[in-house]
C-alpha cells in the first residue's frame, strides 16, 4: 500500500511540473486593432515579423497572420472557405490557376501608390506571363533557377544546362525533385517552352531526363544548399535566392543562369475575391511595398525584391549590384515564368515524371 502511494505522488509531481512549464512560458498578448483586421496567408518565414508590428502600430489594423508551406497546400485551404483570408502570396502558376477559377479580386492601383511607383516595370512585365494585364497580382519576391557549381570540382566553367548531361560529372549532379523544375531543365535544353503541352516535346524532355538519371547523385529539394556548401556534389540546380547565402558559407561556389534560358519565378500578393476586409488588405499590401519596409523584408528573406526603390537603399554595394540577386532580365533570352497548365496538363506532367523516377 505504501508503494502505491509513492507511485501516485510521483505522477502528481510530473503533472505539476507540466502545469508549471505551461504557466511559465505563457506570454501571449492580444490587442484588437481599433481599425478592424486583415487576414494574411503567406509562406513560412517569408516576412520580417517586425514589419507586421510596425503596420499594426501605424494603422491600428490588427494583422492575423497565417503561414503555408507549398502552393498546393495553400490552394485547398483558400478554396474550402474554412477561413476567409484577405491576402495570399502564391507563386506565378498558382496565381494563374486562381485567376482562372475566379478566386481573386482586382487590384485598385489608386489605393496603392507605393505598389504603383516602387515595383519595377520589368517585374510587372514579367508577371504578365500569368496575370496578362497586371490586374490581380503585385510582385513580392522573385528569382531565377540556375546552376550552382563548385569551381574546385569542375574542369571548366559551367554555363549551359547541357553540361548537366556530361558524363564527367557522373554522381556529382543534384537535380530538383519537383516535376516542373526538372522538366524545365530538359525543355529549355531542347529549346522548347517550359509551359509546353506538346506530346512530342514532352516525350523528348522525358527521354532526356531518363538519359541523365544515371549521372544524377540525387533528386533533392532544399538539401541542395547544405550539400553544395559541404562539397558533397559539384553541380546543383538551385533557386537564386539560396545562392548568395551558399556563397557566403563556401566561397568556391558559383551561380550562373544557363544560356539556354530558365524559369523566372515570382511570388506575388493577391487579394481574394471574398476578402472580408478589402480596404485593409490594400493598405497592407501597399505598406509592404513601401521602400523601407521592402528593404527590411529583403534583408530578412534574402530573396530578390522587385521593389526598385528598396534596392536603391541597400547599403552593401556587392549585394546592390549583385548579378545573382538582380540580374538584368533583358540580357537573357528565353526567360519564362510558369503558368497553370490545367488539370489535364498537371496530371500529364506528373505521369511523365513518375516514369522518369521509376525508370
Amino acid at each position: 500500500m505504501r508503494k502505491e502511494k509513492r507511485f501516485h505522488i510521483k505522477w502528481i509531481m510530473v503533472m505539476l511540473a507540466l502545469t508549471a512549464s505551461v504557466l511559465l512560458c505563457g506570454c501571449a498578448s492580444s490587442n484588437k486593432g481599433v481599425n478592424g483586421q486583415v487576414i494574411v496567408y503567406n509562406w513560412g518565414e517569408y516576412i520580417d515579423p517586425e514589419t507586421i508590428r510596425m503596420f499594426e502600430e501605424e494603422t491600428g489594423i490588427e494583422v492575423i497572420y497565417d503561414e503555408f508551406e507549398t502552393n498546393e497546400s495553400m490552394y485547398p485551404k483558400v478554396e474550402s472557405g474554412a477561413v476567409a483570408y484577405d491576402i495570399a502570396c502564391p507563386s506565378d502558376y498558382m496565381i494563374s490557376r486562381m485567376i482562372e477559377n475566379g478566386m481573386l479580386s482586382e487590384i485598385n492601383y489608386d489605393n496603392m501608390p507605393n505598389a504603383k511607383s516602387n515595383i519595377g516595370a520589368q517585374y510587372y512585365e514579367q508577371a504578365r506571363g500569368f496575370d496578362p494585364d497586371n490586374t490581380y497580382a503585385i510582385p513580392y519576391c522573385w528569382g531565377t533557377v540556375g546552376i550552382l557549381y563548385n569551381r574546385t570540382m569542375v574542369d571548366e566553367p559551367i554555363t549551359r544546362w547541357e553540361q548537366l548531361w556530361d558524363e564527367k560529372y557522373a554522381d556529382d549532379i543534384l537535380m530538383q525533385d519537383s516535376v516542373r523544375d526538372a522538366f524545365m531543365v530538359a525543355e529549355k535544353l531542347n529549346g522548347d517552352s517550359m509551359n509546353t503541352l506538346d506530346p512530342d516535346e514532352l516525350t523528348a524532355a522525358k527521354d532526356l531526363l531518363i538519359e541523365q538519371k544515371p549521372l544524377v547523385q540525387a533528386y533533392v529539394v532544399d538539401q541542395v544548399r547544405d550539400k553544395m556548401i559541404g562539397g558533397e556534389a559539384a553541380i546543383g540546380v538551385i533557386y537564386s535566392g539560396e545562392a548568395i547565402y551558399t556563397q557566403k558559407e563556401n566561397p568556391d561556389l558559383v551561380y550562373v543562369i544557363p544560356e539556354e534560358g530558365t524559369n523566372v519565378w515570382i511570388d506575388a500578393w493577391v487579394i481574394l475575391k471574398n476578402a472580408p476586409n478589402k480596404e485593409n488588405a490594400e493598405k497592407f499590401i501597399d505598406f509592404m511595398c513601401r521602400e523601407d519596409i521592402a528593404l527590411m523584408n529583403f534583408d530578412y528573406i534574402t530573396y530578390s525584391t522587385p521593389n526598385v526603390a528598396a534596392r536603391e537603399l541597400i547599403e552593401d554595394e556587392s549585394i546592390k549590384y549583385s548579378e545573382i540577386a538582380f540580374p538584368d532580365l533583358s540580357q537573357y533570352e528565353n526567360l519564362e515564368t510558369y503558368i497553370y497548365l490545367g488539370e489535364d496538363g498537371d496530371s500529364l506532367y506528373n505521369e511523365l515524371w513518375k516514369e522518369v523516377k521509376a525508370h
Partner: protein
Amino acid sequence: MKNAAKKIYIALIVLFLYAPIGTLMVLSFNASKTRAKWGGFSIQWYIALFENEEILRALFNTLVIALVSSLVATVIGTIACIAMTGMKRQAKSILMGITNIPMLNADIVTGVSLMLLYISLGIRFGMGTILLSHITFNIPYVILSVMPRMKQLNPSTFEAALDLGSSHLNAFFKVVFPDLLPGILSGFLMAFTMSLDDFIITHFTKGVGVDTLSTKIYTEIKKGIKPEMYALSSLIFVTVLTLLVLINLSPDKKEKK
C-alpha cells in the same frame, strides 16, 4: 560470447534510436546555420530562441492544448469507463469497438473528417477547433488505459462502503477512485504525449494565426528549418529525459530490489 552479442545488439538499437537526436543536439550548438559546416561552438540559437516570439507562442499553444485536451479527455474517458462497466456485455463490447476505431484510423482521415464536420456546422476555426479535435482523439487512449484497471476492481469494496453508510459519490472517491488512479494517470500522460505529438489533425483543424510547434516547423520548409528549432528540440528532449530519470531514481524502485 552470447553476452557480447547481446550488448552489441542493444548498443545498435540505442544508436539507431538516438543518433538523430544526438546530431540535432550537436547542431544546435553550431555557430553556422548550415549542417555542412561546423562554425564553432555557440549558444546563439538558444538566445535567439528565447527572443523569438512566434516560436514561444507556438510552444505555449502546444502545451496549453496538450494539457487542457488531455485533462478533459481524462475526465470524459474515466466517466465513460465507469458507465461501461455497468452495461451489459454486448453493449459494452460494441462501445469498446467504437472507441477503438479512431485509434486504428489514419490520422489524416480523422483530420479531414473533423475539418469537414466543422465547416458543415459553421464552426469558426481557431484554438477551439484544435482543442475539440485533440479531446476527440485523446478519449480512446484514456479509456484504453483505465478500462483494464476497472476490470481488476473488486465490486464488493464499493458495496461494502455503501453498506457502511457512505453516499454513492463519497464511496466512489474514497474507494474506487484511488484504485483507478494509476490507470487514470497513465491515460492522462498517454493523451498528453499524443496531443503534443500530433501534426496532421492539427494541420487540418487549426484556425488562422494559431500555430502549434509541429505546424510552425512545417511552414518553415520553404526557407529551411531554423536552427532555433534545433535548440528548442534539444531543450524539450533534455527536459523529458530528466523527468524520466527522476521518476526512475525514486526510492521505491530500490525497495523492490
